[in-house]
């Protein structure tokens, strides 16, 4: 398995290097987060907003950039195309599940972009006077674990939507809807603490928080101790849920795909 991954990873990486403008441009799509940061900064100019100082907003969105980079997924687009154009058939006869190709491609892009992004984020955090992170061995370990969980929730939920292409040509519309929900409810638009209390209660149980905001909160020291454990439990419950969902959908989908004989 390791060797296979290395090979997949290698080819994906070479593909991503092929178009040199692309990495830069994708970096710029993180602008959305930056824009929101700028808007919040302009609002928090006169004093803290919802418990966030200007420095907190900077720290929140800088960590958010990295989390977003890691949890950025687009496998469902590729999967939809493959299914619609019949390019999936040759992949199905290979002795490796197509999901691994998408995972490898996803991480190849992450590695490249993170190497570009990390230095920038570090510099911004250092030069912003009151942008503080809460760095303890436990918080760092919990952050890494939550980051892995965030990627799994994002990737598996996206993949589940992609698999819907077996039945509908409109799966990408669902992907777009999902992206839209993610922008608002995962904490890109605003830290979730800014939402009305009733909504926050609901968001604690929905998967969106665990794709981004949860990780940020850990590293900013806003979510600790039992609330941290609760969060991790909910996050990994969602991981398990989407994992099972993907397995079931794939089985059903592959069967109906085979039945049509596409």
């Amino acid at each position, binding site marked *: 398995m390791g060797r296979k991954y290395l090979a997949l990873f*290698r080819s994906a*990486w*070479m593909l991503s*290097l*092929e178009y*040199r403008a692309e990495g830069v441009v994708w970096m710029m799509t993180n602008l959305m987060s930056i824009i929101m940061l700028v808007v919040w900064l302009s609002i928090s100019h006169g004093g803290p907003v919802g418990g966030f100082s200007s420095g907190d907003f900077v720290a929140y969105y800088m960590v958010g950039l990295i989390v977003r980079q890691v949890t950025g997924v687009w496998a469902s687009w590729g999967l939809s195309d493959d299914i619609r154009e019949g390019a999936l058939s040759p992949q199905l006869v290979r002795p490796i599940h197509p999901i691994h190709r998408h995972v490898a491609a996803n991480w190849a892009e992450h590695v490249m972009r993170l190497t570009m992004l990390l230095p920038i984020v570090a510099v911004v955090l250092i030069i912003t006077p009151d942008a503080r992170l809460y760095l303890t061995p436990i918080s760092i370990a919990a952050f890494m674990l939550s980051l892995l969980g965030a990627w799994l929730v994002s990737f598996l939920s996206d993949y589940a939507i992609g698999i819907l292409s077996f039945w509908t040509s409109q799966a990408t519309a669902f992907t777009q809807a999902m992206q839209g929900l993610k922008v608002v409810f995962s904490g890109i638009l605003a830290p979730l603490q800014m939402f009305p209390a009733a909504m926050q209660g609901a968001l604690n149980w929905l998967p969106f928080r665990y794709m981004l905001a949860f990780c940020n909160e850990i590293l900013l020291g806003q979510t600790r101790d039992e609330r941290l454990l609760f969060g991790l439990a909910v996050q990994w419950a969602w991981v398990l849920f989407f994992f099972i969902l993907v397995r079931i959908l794939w089985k059903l989908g592959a069967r109906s795909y085979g039945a049509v004989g596409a």
Partner: protein
Amino acid sequence: MPFAFFISMAYQIEVTHLSKHYQVHEKEPGLMGSLRSFVARKYRAVKAVDDVSFNIGQGEMVGFLGPNGAGKTTTLKVLAGLLYPTSGKATVLGFTPNKRENAYLKQFTLVMGQKQQLMWDLPAQETFLVNQAIYEIPRAQYDATIKELDDLLELGPIMKKQVRKLSLGERMKCELAAALLHRPRVLFLDEPTIGLDVTMQARIREFIAEYNRRYGATVMLTSHYMADVTALCDRIIVIDKGRLFYDGNFRALIERVAPYKIIKLQLAQPTTAEALAQFGQVESCNGLTAVLHVPRATATESAARLLSQVKVEDVTFEEPPVEDIIREVFAGIGKDEARGAR
């Protein structure tokens, strides 16, 4: 002697010392290679067309031959005004193609067998209507042309079906119809029969010939299928690696490259190759069957001699297959170049 030399009318297509060079970026293999070309790209100049000249008169059908990447499509694209020549000159119907004047664009058509202009999700007739508006074809002429194309290509039922539901051959018929609605005087056909089965290839070929006959249209055709060229074109232009290699009568080329005929023998009793060698070059001889190449000039005489001296069950005379001739032409080009390099 170039065939076109004998045509007295004014040329419709004139190409003089045409060259088209462009740059490609070279990708090195492997991980390090792609990293390196990510940082600094290497470029290489490619001479797609290199100092090519020819003239084509009205109503001529010219086959354009050459291996892949020889520069056929590039030349057609220059003539269609899609590419600027690097140097040299091309004139079609008195126009400079790359100016792309509407007056010129309305008089030719470009068909590319591997690319389609039809709208995928709609019946072909929707594309026809769009083209009618684009080319400003009067209603009456449009109807007449459609009717005529329908007669020739049996478009009736297929032009009302969504293009994506058509077979490859049906799609090509519609492509041709869409491309010919405005009754162009010059046709550039790039691999018009590619991917089609033999019967459909023949249909398309007949149609092109008929269009040429009816409207006196000038046709330039590239094809991988030699049958297209032998059936349609008296004259061929052969290019390789961008350079003009041959321009002239197809028969003359055959005489030049393959100045022999093939005699296939079915012998009554086993004979050796040595025994047959006196009649011509023995290509193969295994007991009761033999294949001989005999010089064209003395073919009849050799055959007569052979029949009187050897007991033969059956004999057939054949022209060398065109594919072989072309292969030999290209092999010859390779040899010339190797010699030139030394």
